[in-house]
């Protein structure tokens, strides 16, 4: 379980996130799909997936969003608030895959207010094959005295 952080990371463009390797199991794909309330058969029924031309059951997009979010907030701590998460799924993620997560800070925007917006690129690969690419816009406190981005008033929250 991660712990709250304030001021323990000061992201800068070019910083790399620690790599993460996840061994994807059939159980994870099915539990992720049902946990995200996705009942489509290609996420739990191998025969249905094959009939749809897929190699096996595939990880659903909600589980991928959850894993990308987890990867980013494992690094930022819970004070990091994701404002925007965009991802392209280029190859299906099937059981028995080893998915390598890597990430990099692309830019840090400080507009003189309470929030520093961190733009991140994230890649999910198996070997050299890119499975999913993502970009994430993450809010962090602009400095140690700034309020938490979770306390940002709705009319000032511009993800």
């Amino acid at each position: 379980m991660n712990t709250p952080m304030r001021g323990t990371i000061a992201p800068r463009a070019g910083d790399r996130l620690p790599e993460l390797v996840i061994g994807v199991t059939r159980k994870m794909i099915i539990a992720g799909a049902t946990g995200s309330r996705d009942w489509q058969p290609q996420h739990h029924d191998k025969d249905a997936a094959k009939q749809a031309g897929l190699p096996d059951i595939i990880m659903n997009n909600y589980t991928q969003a959850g894993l990308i979010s987890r990867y980013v907030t494992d690094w930022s701590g819970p004070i990091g608030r994701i404002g925007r998460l965009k991802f392209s799924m280029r190859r299906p993620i099937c059981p028995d895959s080893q998915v390598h997560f890597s990430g990099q800070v692309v830019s840090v925007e400080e507009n003189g207010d309470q929030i520093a917006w961190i733009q991140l690129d994230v890649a999910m690969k198996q070997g050299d094959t890119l499975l999913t690419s993502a970009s994430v816009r993450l809010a962090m406190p602009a400095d140690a005295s700034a309020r938490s981005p979770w306390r940002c008033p709705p009319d000032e929250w511009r993800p």
Partner: protein
Amino acid sequence: MIIVDHVVTVEQGLWTNFCVAIEDGNLLYWDYTASRDQTDSVIAPPAMLPSWAVEHDWVPGRDRPARRTLELHFMVKDTLGLRNGIVTEVELELHAPLRAGESVRAEQILRSVGPERETRLGTGRNWEIDVQYRKPDGSLAGIQRLHFLAYGKVAA
């Protein structure tokens, strides 16, 4: 446009199952004491936002089939006579977090439909759907933008 309104109540037991599946230990989803400083109480994982607009697969007394995960997508796919559909790109713009006991109203809007084309998986088409998620008081919880590829022409 398809509107899905309060088909499930946000609850911690449901989101905990998802956190367990992906081994997400973010304290804001688990720990009341630790989350107090940031979000007043625990919140649902923001990436799960679309899940709160998916009907229960079975409900007592319902006299119609459950709406599918994103009903508008399936209506487009069926209308165009395509057998299979997959999501290729997703964008989530996240606003107010959701807490236990809340719900969302989701408005699914078809943004565009591309021409028929040959894809790696056969003849198909692309389309885009936006979904706006709002709480009962009208506040914005988030916006989801989805790009689809559907393929496998059903014989006429």
